[in-house]
């Protein structure tokens, strides 16, 4: 797609079929609404913090929908939209940010690793996991998500290198949203693009318009297919933009210009897929299209309502849960602390 949502073909990559285009758009609509809702909850103090990915929905949705059922996703803290697109209960996605528990979902159930806060550390987990799956004879690829800033960490380098040397099917999807909190990309790297980093590991690097869900989907799909076929891992740099502040406690006016934000808002990924869907009549005629788009909006509202409801409850997490999963069994000294805390709580 060009920036107005007009189709552009590429000899190497296959554009998503119409049904997939609709899925991409729907997931973005839901993701956008989710970002807004979570942002509101954070401002209301119902979440401890929320890192919004408004503006980055195409990159997350495009990447995740390229995964097969058995594949794994390794998200960072900013990848809520990726998680709900993968099918994780939206309220469970927010457990971390609400502060009820560190990870709200069972990673094995959805084949989604816990949201990762220490930057770039999830990337080597993805490498190890796919290595293990291959050892067990399973056809499992992984999508490891990281930001532009995270590529500066040593852990990113080590993960890229292990993946390339072991030839494990991992696609490292770098959402280059131009900022690492307040630090712009040019302070992060002097490379022409982040995709160029792939060369130094002997793997493929793709540079893609990260606000074009179809393009991200096409590129990640191809990279995953190559990786599965033994062609090695890849870095996909999706160029996008973080429209909201880093989190609700950020102060972006200190470091960036509103005009920059405006530039990117014009290139909103949702507007672009919508334009394409309408122009190409993917969802049917104009009327049918309106109807389907309205249903997407309704789905998004349902998700938002569910999230509001689930976050409204005051049910506090059980303090006893502090002790149960530190080790496979509760060791004696910890059990003593557990009993002490229970006694303390009985007193009050």
């Amino acid at each position, binding site marked *: 797609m060009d920036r107005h949502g007009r189709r552009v073909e590429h000899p190497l990559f296959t554009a998503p079929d119409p049904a997939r285009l609709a899925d991409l758009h729907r997931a973005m609509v839901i993701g956008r609404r989710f970002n807004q809702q979570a942002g509101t909850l954070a401002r209301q103090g119902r979440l401890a913090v929320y890192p919004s990915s408004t503006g980055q929905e195409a990159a997350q949705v495009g990447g995740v929908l390229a995964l097969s059922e058995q594949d794994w996703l390794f998200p960072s803290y900013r990848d809520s939209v990726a998680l709900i697109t993968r099918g994780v209960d939206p309220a469970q996605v927010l457990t971390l940010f*609400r502060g009820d528990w560190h990870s709200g979902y069972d990673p094995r159930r959805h084949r989604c690793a816990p949201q990762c806060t*220490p*930057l770039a550390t999830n990337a080597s987990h993805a490498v190890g996991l796919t290595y293990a799956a291959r050892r067990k004879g399973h056809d499992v690829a992984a999508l490891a998500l990281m930001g532009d800033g995270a590529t500066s*960490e*040593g852990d990113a380098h080590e993960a890229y290198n292990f993946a390339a040397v072991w030839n494990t099917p991992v696609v490292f999807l770098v959402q280059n949203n131009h900022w690492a909190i307040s630090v712009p990309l040019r302070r992060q790297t002097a490379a022409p693009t982040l995709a160029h980093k792939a060369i130094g590991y002997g793997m493929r690097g793709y540079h893609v318009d990260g606000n074009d869900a179809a393009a991200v989907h096409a590129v990640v799909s191809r990279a995953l297919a190559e990786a599965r076929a033994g062609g090695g891992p890849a870095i996909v740099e999706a160029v996008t933009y973080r429209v909201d502040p880093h989190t609700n*406690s950020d102060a972006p006016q200190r470091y960036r210009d509103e005009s920059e934000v405006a530039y990117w808002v014009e290139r909103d990924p949702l507007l672009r897929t919508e334009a394409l869907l309408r122009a190409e009549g993917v969802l049917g005629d104009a009327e049918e299209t309106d109807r389907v788009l309205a249903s997407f909006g309704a789905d998004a509202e349902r998700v938002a309502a569910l999230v509001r409801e689930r976050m409204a409850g005051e049910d506090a997490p059980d303090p006893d849960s*502090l*002790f149960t999963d530190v080790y496979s069994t509760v060791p004696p000294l910890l059990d003593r602390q557990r009993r002490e805390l229970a006694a303390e709580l009985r007193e009050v």
Partner: protein
Amino acid sequence: MTRAPGGDAPAEVSMGAALNRALRDAVAGDPDVVVYGEDVGPLGGVFRVTDGLHGEFGDERVFDSPLAESGIVGTAIGMAMYGLRPVVEMQFDAFAYPAFEQVVSHLAKTRNRTRGAVPLPVVVRVPYGGGIGGVEHHSDSSEAYYTHTPGLRVVTPGTPADAYSMLREAIACDDPVVFLEPKRRYWSKEAVELPVRTEPMDRPVVRRQGTDVTLVAYGPMVETALEAAGAAAGEGRSIEVVDLRQLAPLDDSVLVESVCRTGRAVVVHEASVFGGYGAEVAARVTERCFHYLEAPVLRVGGLDVPYPPPRLEGYHLPDAERILAAVDRLQWESEWVEGGPG
């Protein structure tokens, strides 16, 4: 402590503001001081401790670096080798771990390695501890890792005045300093005129005098300990509060003097108790004051679990009540018997 000239009551200053002022005065006072790290430039740091510095001193003196903690400490080591005095920030406690090798294997050891030829005047600022509702990895208390590493000075202020004075002293110090900032106290205020020069950082300070029991605290727990002491006073128990300030290398003289006088001691910190810094205090004080002790030195600290999520951190963190409960267990009745096998 310096009083305000002219008799005016000095203004209330938060610990964050005191640290900010210390950095500003240090950068202004010595062209070799540079401040860098993640987001310390235009943003002023995620806690705004470097607020305004980039604007005032420019990108040559205060700047954002690439996002890589090992690289940050590694480059600071190189800068110090050539005579700069870098002050670097680790954004949160757990995000200093990627730099662990540089800190332990180089920062701590280079002076020793070179028989003193290459001292490393580097300050590594680490906002540490919990109590701010931070998600995973944003609330660790990592002092035990650093205090067990010879060659590092590990200091942590408990008051705004100390925050200012100790940070200035740390920057002026020719040894590498891990400067632990109790992040939950960034907003705690004290009436103080800056600049101020408090006791040298390597001297523990008695924050409140008392006769019955010594409460040993540092960093975020100083305020909590004083709160406990205040409450105890209401009930007729006189608690002395010692603020350690420089955790390593420790000057144990004030501590030992106090405990030998009171005969009872509790040491408190946020970090998990097991293998925590409190173990060192308890072991050392016991060794030196054994025959003066009426009861074992008790430790009050975090549970031996990974730092909990925000809505559970209240169960983890020591508060005045827990401290007082420990004080109550200090065998005030003469027939007390506890512990022992079984």
